[in-house]
């Protein structure tokens, strides 16, 4: 299943040349590879010498980079992170001694993956946000020339939102928005919208999403790209604002008629959020419990790999099952919520009266 992948280096780890240590290899989005010697790395591009010719690869086209001389565990790290196994990634990273890392880019990879794993664990309730925030902050402060920079900036913003420091988060998103890439601008706009929603500033959030939708986009040439995903994310965000504004029918129409109908089923994260939003909209309507149930069940059955959405879905499912007289199913959902997401805020959220 194709997961949406950021520009971070998340290589599959399979099918790479037998002698991985001999050259640098950039894996681009769409699986194309560029092998050569990395000559320069910045926050916006990577320069690679391919048989004497310098190719400039923009960072938003890079999936991952395998560096000459890096420890073999790094492949496993990338592989684990790509499939959501952040804890496994940390386990692999623990096997690497940082002192043995000599090459700057490899050290940056090491530091970045460690910080990112912690951050993703923390964001889904399985780790400490403060510690993760420190790690990311340190990376962002000290590695402005890394090709991971913008992703680190976005993650920093996400952690600050989780810590309810939204104004600070917006500053980081503003930096992302200042990048030269439209798809990163879109990401920034979507992140900004989410942050504003966290502050219940729905009109501003909606404006942020509308701004994303104004960024130039070619549906023919950009189909299946991150830009398309971000547009859907913006539409989704807009419907979430509509829902917050009690415009449930409009939100439902948009979600069912546009977002879910046209979104690639493999865009798990967005699909999950779309169904959670849809479920919340239906749940707010007096006769919408069954439709809400089906919406949340989509997340539980199809998109359980998206932790935040899955936790919210499980909580809602437990309440809906009880409302519909199926207490045993409600209890089972609560049990799974407790077991799978022990630190999730949904565990302590009270059942609505």
């Amino acid at each position, binding site marked *: 299943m194709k997961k949406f992948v950021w520009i971070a280096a998340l290589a599959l780890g399979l099918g790479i040349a037998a002698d991985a240590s001999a050259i640098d290899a950039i894996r681009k989005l769409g699986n194309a590879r560029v092998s050569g010697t990395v000559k320069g790395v910045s926050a916006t591009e990577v320069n690679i010498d391919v048989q004497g010719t310098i190719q400039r690869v923009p960072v938003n086209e890079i999936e991952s980079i395998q560096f000459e001389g890096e420890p073999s565990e790094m492949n496993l790290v990338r592989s684990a992170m790509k499939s959501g196994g952040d804890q496994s990634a940390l386990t692999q990273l623990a096997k690497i001694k940082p002192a043995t890392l000599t090459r700057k880019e490899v050290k940056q990879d090491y530091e970045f993956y460690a910080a990112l794993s912690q951050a993703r664990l923390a964001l889904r309730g399985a780790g400490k946000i403060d510690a993760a925030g420190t790690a990311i902050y340190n990376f962002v402060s000290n590695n402005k020339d890394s090709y991971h920079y913008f992703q680190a900036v976005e993650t920093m913003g996400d952690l600050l939102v989780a810590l309810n420091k939204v104004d600070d988060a917006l500053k980081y998103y503003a930096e992302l928005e200042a990048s030269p890439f439209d798809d990163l601008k879109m990401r920034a706009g979507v992140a900004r919208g989410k942050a504003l929603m966290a502050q219940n500033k729905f009109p501003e959030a909606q404006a942020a999403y509308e701004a994303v939708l104004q960024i130039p986009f070619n549906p023919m040439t950009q189909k299946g790209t991150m830009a398309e995903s971000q547009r859907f994310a913006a539409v989704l965000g807009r419907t979430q604002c509509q829902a917050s504004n009690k415009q449930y029918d409009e939100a439902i129409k948009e979600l069912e008629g546009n977002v879910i109908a046209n979104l690639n*089923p493999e865009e798990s994260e967005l699909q999950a959020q779309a169904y959670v939003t849809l479920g919340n909209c239906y749940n707010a309507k007096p006769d919408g419990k069954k439709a809400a*149930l089906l919406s949340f*069940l989509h997340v539980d*059955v199809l998109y359980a790999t998206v932790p935040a959405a899955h936790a919210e879905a499980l909580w809602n499912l437990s309440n809906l099952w009880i409302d519909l007289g199926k207490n045993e*199913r409600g209890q*089972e959902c609560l049990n799974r919520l407790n*077991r799978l997401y022990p630190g999730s805020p949904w565990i302590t959220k009270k059942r609505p009266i």
Partner: protein
Amino acid sequence: MKCFGSRLLPASLSAGRLFSAAALAALVAGAPPAQAAEEYDNFLNGLRQRSYYDVALDYLDSMRNSPLLSEEQRQMIPFEEARTSLEASRSERDPIIRDKMLDIARDKFKDFVSKNPEHPQAPGAETQLGAVLVERGRSKVEQALRPEFEKQKKQLLEEARKFYTESEQVFKQAEEKFAKLLGTFPKFMAPNDPRVAQRERAKGDLIQAHMFHAYGLYEKAKTFDEKSAEFKTALTTAAEKYGAIYKDYRTLIAGLAARLKEGQCYQELKDTKRALGLYNDLLGQPDELKALRPYKASAMYLSLQCWTADTEKLYELAALQADEFIRGSSNDELNRPEWLAVKYYGALANELFAASFPADAKGEELKKKQAALDNAAEFAESVAGVTGEYQDLSRALLQRMGTQVDKTREPRTFLEAQNRGTDEMGKYSASMAEAAKQTDAAAQQAKLKEADEHRNNAVALFYKALSLADEATSLEDKNIVRYYICYMKFTMQQTYDAAVVGEFLLKFYPNSGGARSAAKIALACYVTEYQNNQAALQSGDANAVKPLNPEYDRNKMYAIASEITKRWAGEPEADDAWNILLAIAINEKNVPDILLTLGKIQETSEMRAEAEMRAGSTLWALYNEQLSLDDGDPSKPTPEKLQELVKTANEVLEKGVERRRSKLDAFTKFTLPDADAIRFLVDSRIALGQNDKALALLEDPKLGLLALVRAGATNPAATVDPIPFETFKLALQAYILNGKVAEAQKLIPELNTLMAKAGGDTADQIAGTYLNLALRLEKQIDTNRQAGNVEGIKQAASGFKFFLEQVRDSYLVAPDKYSALPPEKQTMAFQNVNWASDNMFKLAGDLLNQPQVAPADKAMADELLAASSKIDDQLAPLTQPNSDAQLIVKLRKARAMRRAEKWADAVAALKDVLNGRRNLMEGQVEAAETLAASAVKTSDMTAFDKAIGGTAPDDKGDNIIWGWKRIADTMRRVPQFAVPVKPESADQAAAAKYAEEMAQHQAFMNFFHIGRYNTALDYYQHAMAITAADERSKLLKAVLYTIDVTSGITPDMGGPTWKAKYDELAAKAKKAQQ
């Protein structure tokens, strides 16, 4: 008839998975199914995997017209609905709901096929109909094996067989169809030939049909006794079928799955050698093919069963094979159900192998023995900790091996505690059964004490089990334990404890296996407490514990019944609950509750008719009870309320009896409650004036009580006393009220015969009957009189007359017979006959007092008056001369004569009365009125003079009949004519005396004015009756003079009423003078 391992076959072999196109493809292709990428399919399958069948059906319904689906997917929706319902039926424990699901599945498959006959899935859907039949058969077999269906076991198994047989036909037809279709494809086709997919589908359909067919044959065998020839034949047939499938498809997983089942068939036929040979075909398959591993594991444990069977006893071989297989399996396989079975049977094999060594084994033998024991323990331990079918068996094995499970130690898992609790519960039941058989009191007590201990242990263990439950413990198991607690507590009469648990299951887990029974227990508990509390409240025993909140249990009863209705609306549980509450309401005669609880019992319920009849009968009885209260009784309801009650009773009885009609197609089917309800209905119709309907019901060919009573010999139970007697009474009344006197009279001989058969003083009973019937009609007529309803009186008149005559004939006897009666009987006879005469007289008066008297009414009135007079003539001699009783009789006769316009007779009678009692003012007034009336009617003007001046002089020339003037003069002369002096003091005695004197004064004044006014009136009437002017003028002057004089004597003219009359008369006289 349990088939070893049938539940542990790999998922692809259970019927449900065979439906899946993907799984089918796997069976056909021998490779794992390709991933279906469509979200709709994934979601639907995901819901089914979670057993969220209800949600899956809702989802399908919601997607029916969704633009998100392709046309192909939309077409398949009925198919998916059918498939979902069929899968759902397998996990449904409630047989009623399971059958409903199978009905839905069948209907949906049929619907799909009929609407899409050309669809590629249509043939498969037809095969599924056969699968539905197989499931129905399995459902019947499951039911047959349950202890509560022991009596119906044979019938259920026969029904199951029918379903299997029917399914065989479906599968045979499907096989023929698919085989034919498959034959149309060329043997060799290019891989890119578009017909390849069709051929594969046809092949898949054919294999599916074969597998279902074989499965149905296999299941059918379970409907026969294991020792019977039919069982052997059926299983052999199934084995051959499976064998044929293997032969044709040995390279596919389906073929290997069939081989496994074939082996199982022979194993169940005790042909272990053959079975082992067949299992070996699977065991020899390579391990690399992952999809085959579960089949191999199944083959292994089945082989272990065979090797360790008494017919083989190849323990060492079994132990070695088990060891090799288990140790060669991967970790993620070892906890799968098939491997748990391998481990258990492997442990068993090792145990048996170890036991085959002598007790004093030494050296190499001892080593082998110890190794076997170690292996056995290792395998058993690994299974004993896993919840499932083999957990207990493994524990038992460990116990046998010497790892004793101490029964006094605390259980360590939920399942252990549950199992031990269930054991104790079984021992409790057994002890109770034994106690019931004991004839010796001491022995019985001992058994009861034993039962008590087991019960206490059971409850403690069940609570322990709940405390040990963890996330892995299934909710269904927890709820079963809760139900056991509820039941045990109920038997311990800890009613509130039991009720709490029962209510918990009802509210939160109504679909759990014990919920319905638990709900009934909860209701029973609150009913018990309610009744106990009511008894305490009403006992009057100062020491009885009174409830603090008497309404609590009552409210809970109703709440539980409502909850039951909410959960199981339309099902017997709901109706049962309300029926129980109805019985309580009936017992309490609580009308609102009776109507409420009755209304909650479904109209379509079998018990509704009987409930209505019970309720209606109670309301009718209540009506009669309240009607018979004295009018002055403050607890007697108003006439309006009584009317409402009788209408309600009637309505309820009408519905109940009508509902019952269809069941009562022969008199032999009547019950006593039926007869009672029908007679109450007749009676209530009469009370409501629906006399024709009452008679119609009595004479109804199906429900008619007259016919029932006459055919009483065919149904003695429904015609016990007082049914016959009451029926005839009702019939008498109904005939009379419908004016069919002749038919009523025809009943009398039957009634007499009935009375004679019943024995006792029949004459008295009959007389009492007529009197009671007459009294009932009198009440009715009195009510009409008060309401001024003459028509109502007339309707009842002929009937009333009939009964009054019967009363007369029953009680009036010749003087010599009368004097021979004991005093109390004399009194009763006199009173009853006097009453009859009086009522005849009054009834005549009602008829004659109409503004316009129709000839028929006049005729009846004359008859009544004559009859009354005749009675009075016979009564008078029975009384003491000049006694009050005689005076009453004679005076009535005189009045009757007057009403009958027999003037001379009337005056003579009055003369007779007044002769002995001149001062009888009533008589004097009656006489003067009679004379005046006769003057008006006969135009004999001298009668006016006599009315005014008196007549009938005695020996001394004194008029026996005084006339108006003397009446008034006499009144004027008595001391009471003067107004009494009001006492000045507030003395109570003086005040009382004054009040009495005033009452007397007013009575005398009244008579005075009667005399004076009627004097004036008669003058006037005389004046108006003549034409001679002088005479007329004179008389008119006399009118005014009389009035004038009266005003001089009593200036207030006797008060406003009299004054108005005087004034009116004076005005008329003055006008006539002009």
